[in-house]
């Protein structure tokens, strides 16, 4: 890892220079809603003063709707036209989620080539959170506002400058012109890191939580926590680590398409016979929480939630995944046996 330094003014110049050689995707303000978009005018990039985009960065690699194949009597895969691109300004929680998605979609035998090609063609410049929101809890699930996982470069805003951590070969190629950070500057970054992290929630005991959730499976606990759920699915659509998709045929366009899907919908698991293993919101809410905090732990010994807080922030009825985890940890389900 190298530590470099750049002023805010110089970074703007650098961003403009990059747009000449790369496709750059960055947060752009669209009527008060931040979204990752391809940069046409570098001046519109929102670099500071926000906590996160509404849509997670996964949408650039696993788009909400994506053409997989075209039909002309038989189905042909669409050609890979991915160009090298820079993804600028992604938060550490979203970068961490990309590692989880990589695990879910890319296995040795059947890699998801659509994801893989997009991911491999991207240089990820993430930005540390110096002012996490009230809904942020990355530290509770094993992350940090300064986490470097799955990033090539990490920027830390330091007054009128940024400290630039260069983490990979890809990152070095972009930042080789920048001067090294001085020791006093690095000490200031360390101090800031400590201060910000110190205000964040403490780490959840992942195995204890896993065991508690497994024990809660057949109790009335889930009826209780899902009571107010409307089944809108926003928690999963905006989740950076949710990856479920549907495959549908668009007969007019003659295309086979994949669209984001959600375990919060009835038809998601409804079988042709009429049987549904998750017939109500009780089982569906249980699936969402268990997948994040129990099944991921079974699979890779990591929690499958990155603590971005979007599901908390955007839930129309204020269902809070942190509260559910806490309640499970405190074994509130005991005495709620069916």
């Amino acid at each position, binding site marked *: 890892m190298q530590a470099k330094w750049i002023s805010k003014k110089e970074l703007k110049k650098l961003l403009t220079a990059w747009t000449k050689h790369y496709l750059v995707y960055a947060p752009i303000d669209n009527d008060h809603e931040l979204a990752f978009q391809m940069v046409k005018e570098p001046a519109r990039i929102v670099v500071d003063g926000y906590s996160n985009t509404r849509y997670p960065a996964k949408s650039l690699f696993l788009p909400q709707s994506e053409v997989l194949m075209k039909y002309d009597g038989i189905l042909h895969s669409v050609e890979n036209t991915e160009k090298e691109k820079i993804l600028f300004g992604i938060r550490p929680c979203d970068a961490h989620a990309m590692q989880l998605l990589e695990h879910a979609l890319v296995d040795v035998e059947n890699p998801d080539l659509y994801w893989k090609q997009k991911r491999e063609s991207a240089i990820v410049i993430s930005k540390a959170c110096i002012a996490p929101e009230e809904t942020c809890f990355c530290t509770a699930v094993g992350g940090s506002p300064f986490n470097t996982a799955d990033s090539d470069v990490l920027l830390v805003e330091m007054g009128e400058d940024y400290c630039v951590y260069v983490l990979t070969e890809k990152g070095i190629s972009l930042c080789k012109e920048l001067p090294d950070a001085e020791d006093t500057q690095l000490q200031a970054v360390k101090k800031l890191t400590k201060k910000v992290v110190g205000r964040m929630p403490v780490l959840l005991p992942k195995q204890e939580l896993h065991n508690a959730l497994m024990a809660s499976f057949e109790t009335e606990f889930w009826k209780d926590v899902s009571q107010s759920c409307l089944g809108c699915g926003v928690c999963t659509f905006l989740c950076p680590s949710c990856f479920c998709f549907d*495959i549908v045929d668009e007969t007019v366009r003659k295309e086979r398409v994949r669209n984001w899907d959600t375990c919060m919908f009835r038809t998601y*698991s409804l079988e042709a016979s009429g049987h549904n293993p998750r017939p109500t919101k009780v089982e569906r809410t249980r699936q969402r929480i268990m997948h994040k905090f129990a*099944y991921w732990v079974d699979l890779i010994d990591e929690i499958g939630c990155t603590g971005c807080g979007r599901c908390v922030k955007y839930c129309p009825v204020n269902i809070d995944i942190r509260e559910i985890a806490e309640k499970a940890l405190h074994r509130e389900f005991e005495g709620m046996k069916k």
Partner: protein
Amino acid sequence: MKNCYEPFPMHIERIVIETTDTTLKSFELTFDREADRKDFFVKYNPGQFCQLSIFGKGEAPIGIASAAWEGDFVRFTVQKLGKFTSAIHAMHVGDPIGMRGPLGNGFPLDKWKGMNILVIGGGCAFSTLYAMTKHILHPSHRADYAEITALYGTRNSGLCLYKPVIEEWHNRNDIVVHQAIDVPEDNWKYHIGFVPAVLEEMAPKPDNTVAVLCGPPVMTKFTLPILTKLAFPPERIYTSLEKRMKCGVGHCGRCNIGHKYVCKDGPVFTLKELQELPNEI
């Protein structure tokens, strides 16, 4: 590198109407491309399934009902039930169709060598058991296994699949076949009653025996306790599960039970494996 979502082109070679009510048909598909045929038969293990694909109707996961030695085709027995299965039921010999597979794990036939095999099937779920039994009965495989016993139940005799072959099995001396129907019929020579009750009456010995069970959920639910009562240990009771599926390769999310995906880690599980997972079948 191969795109795991792209079906390969096949054609319908033969269609057999299996049941008197015509809701079940078998489709034998042949490969348009030699490379796909080779790839399929290198991988295929009885108990696996494929995603069949009709553009405009989507895809559906269907169990493979043929043994590899039967020829260069793949058989699927399909019940007419939803949009996709109604569309395939309306298709004709010579029509093109897409296919992805074989998918899933299949039955651990190597592990069962030297053992007795008790096959228990109900209704249209008998298809992959049929493929497995055919595989085992082939002269080059039969000696690898001890006694083979099959119990196959259907609501009535007209709903029995693969009638000519099962009739032939009754006359073989290397397999014992028990057939059952739910209510009496004229000229019916075999058992009358539901599969769990007939199984209890048969009282097969659990020693050195694996029980392989495929049927509708209600049959499975009542047959498992009988097997347990007959002292079959959970690690020697196998069953094949169904779920709604899309990708078939463990990416799209929907077919999970706990941290296992039925498409990738199954569809074949032992009762012991299922007991260790959340109860969400």
